[in-house]
């Protein structure tokens, strides 16, 4: 029995390990500052399942040049080289921490060729390789299903907010990803200045709500009053997303930081093995979504929101304060996005300045799959996206393509049923 559990957790680790370098490669890695003053450098980050590997030796040779370095505390390494060219880069495997190996098929030593840039990155991937299928397939499937559900529900937190905003104002908000990032970054910041963890989370959620309020009061409401069209507003939101993303990077830096309690051992719940963080994330997002759903269906405010989404002019004529409803929707959307961001920081794990924009398209895919502007559609669509993201690796798709499949499915669904799963025909136009 123990052996079985070991095999399962090893196979899950393998999936996580394979996934980690993929996400590294996809995001523009921040360049670590070169260790020497030479104009060109070869650099990279060593991470095993998101955790940095320190004090690993790397040798670089070529063109009569030889140099070596050890990776720093954050796993970054850089070797300055005299000129552009081809260099042999070798990772000294004897300096790796106990139990960590390079992934199968990772060339070591390898040749690194300079392109048009002054720094050339190279990624070493770690892990036992791609022997995911070796574990018990059924076990694997169940574990990935639960992980997918957890991921889908945290996506749903952001999607429901996006969908509410779209429903009431018609705006496709490209800056929603930055609202997701903001939640995680605020928790990190408040925690870093010494506030207790729970207070940091509460303040981050309030900060998320405040950002929604400020956005609406300072930008979107004036634009609505001017009668700005929906397409220009969409482009304004792109500008806002760019500006906010780099403002966050300006203060936060390009590195990956960890929130408190980010590392946790997996626990066994009957047939499922899951990390406590993922379990907590699943429960929290499920409860919050049920609350949002109940408020929407049962309360006066929820009724007013649905009325505004259906027909703003008619809602205003029947005495609903449309601006107030939209303001509340923005605040709620901001808080939900911040909560989603905090959970996403634990799911990945790690906080970066572009973590929100990484899942923005998955959020869009969830919303579009379910039907633009329908709240429950956004929920269902996000869960489908989450499940597909996690399950594709079980069925043999390469782990670094796991974000491609939900996006592909979204495009195919648009072909067959453009209004989405729960959408209405007239919204498609």
């Amino acid at each position, binding site marked *: 029995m123990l052996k079985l559990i070991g095999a399962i957790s090893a196979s899950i680790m393998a999936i996580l390990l394979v996934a980690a370098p*993929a996400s590294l*490669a*996809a995001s*523009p*890695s921040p360049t670590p500052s070169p260790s020497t003053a030479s104009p060109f450098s070869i650099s990279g980050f060593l991470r095993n399942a998101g955790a940095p590997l320190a004090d690993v030796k790397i040798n670089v040779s070529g063109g009569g040049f030889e140099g070596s370095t050890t990776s720093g505390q954050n796993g970054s390494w850089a070797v300055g080289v005299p000129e552009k060219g081809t260099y042999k880069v070798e990772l000294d495997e004897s300096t790796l921490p106990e139990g960590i190996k390079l992934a199968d*098929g990772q060339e070591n030593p390898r040749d*690194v*060729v300079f*392109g*048009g*840039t002054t720094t*050339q*990155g190279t*990624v070493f*991937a770690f892990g036992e390789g791609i022997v995911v299928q070796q574990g018990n397939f059924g076990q694997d499937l169940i574990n990935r299903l639960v992980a997918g559900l957890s991921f889908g529900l945290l996506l749903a937190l952001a999607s429901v907010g996006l969908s509410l905003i779209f429903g009431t104002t018609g705006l*496709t908000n490209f800056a929603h990803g930055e609202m997701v990032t903001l939640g995680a970054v605020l928790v990190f910041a408040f925690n870093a200045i010494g506030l207790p963890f729970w207070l940091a989370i509460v303040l981050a959620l309030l900060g998320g709500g405040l950002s929604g309020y400020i956005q609406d009061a300072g930008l979107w409401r004036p*634009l609505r009053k001017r009668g*700005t*069209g*929906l*397409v*220009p507003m*969409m*482009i*304004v939101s*792109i*500008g*806002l*997303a*760019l*500006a*906010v*993303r*780099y*403002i966050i*990077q*300006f203060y936060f830096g*390009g590195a990956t930081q960890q929130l408190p309690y980010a590392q946790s051992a997996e626990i066994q719940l009957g047939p499922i093995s899951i990390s406590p963080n993922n379990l907590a994330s699943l429960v929290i997002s499920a409860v919050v979504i049920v609350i949002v759903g109940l408020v929407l269906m049962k309360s006066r405010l929820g009724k007013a929101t649905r009325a505004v989404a259906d027909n703003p002019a008619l809602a205003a004529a029947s005495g609903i304060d449309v601006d107030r409803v939209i303001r509340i929707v923005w605040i709620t959307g901001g808080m939900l996005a911040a909560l989603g961001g905090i959970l996403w920081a634990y799911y990945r794990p790690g906080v970066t300045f572009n973590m929100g*924009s990484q899942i923005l*398209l998955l959020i*869009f*895919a969830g919303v*579009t799959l379910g039907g*633009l502007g329908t709240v429950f559609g956004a929920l269902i669509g996000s869960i489908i996206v989450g499940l597909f993201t996690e399950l594709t690796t079980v069925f043999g798709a*390469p782990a*670094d*393509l796991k*974000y*491609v499949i939900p*996006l*592909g499915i*979204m*495009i*195919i669904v*648009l*072909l067959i049923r*453009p209004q989405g799963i729960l959408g209405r025909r007239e*919204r*498609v*136009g």
Partner: protein
Amino acid sequence: MDFSSILSNAMGEIISPTTAAYALAALGLAVHFGYSGLLNFGQAGFMAVGAYGFAISTLTFGAPFFVAMLIAVLCSALFALLLGIPTLRLRADYLAIVTIASAEIIRYLVTTNGWTAVTGSANGLAAFEGGFYAMNPFPEGSYMGMSSRDFFIRLVAWILVAACAVLVFLLMRSPWGRVLKGIREDENAVRSLGKNVYAYKMQALIIGGVLGGLAGMIFTLPRGAVQPTNYGTELTFFLWTCLLLGGMATVLGPVIGAMMFWVVLSLTQGILTGLIDSGVVSWLTTTQAGQLRYILVGVALMLLMIFRPQGVFGNKKELAFA
């Protein structure tokens, strides 16, 4: 602080091949959005298809330059076709989401480790520009302060931009272009005249996409390398900034917009770095100065859209949105 070198660097950006690539890709966006009202947020994907189409056919299949170029053009046309089929009948924001998603799919596909032999994965591909520079008719020497290679790539890039600009100008003056503008203004009115709106939109999507593919080639040739991180969504948004800066329903707008974009980026970088080096500004590091520029791009995009949506050269009557 050396103003003359900052200024000459910035002026050098006006004719740099990267600016030419941005101009060409933004011209494609002008065909899409400015003239036809199609919201394409995946121009980076078209550029990636062009760049990788060219690089892969050169490296993997050993195709000569012009064959590789033809393949790149055909690939971007095919990509446009594939994108258009599911989305052109839907509302504009669906096209926006599908195009941005497709561009990211392309980026993930060329990054995946499974196809490293063909795409080079995250490290990308290099050393495919030989066929191009082999055609360089200029002997070694200095041409207006540039090496013969630099001069050749700039000359070719800007001739291509000029040719495409003339082509777009003639197309938009033709009856075909007038139908396209009609679709932008009122799709149903054009449909009631018996025109096949779907086909016209598809043709516009393909033409703009091919311009994007050519831009991808021009973008990657002087670098001698193509890397997937260069083709993220941010590239698309920079192109949109160029387009909106110049004016979306004009031929010269996107070209001038790309020039202004790069001159301003280079100027702010030069001035900020100069201020930091001379110690006037101590609250900023050089890395942060780079980020500050992108904050400015974002803010500029917002302000442009709010206060001058027609851009510098555009005509307010020709806006794709009311």
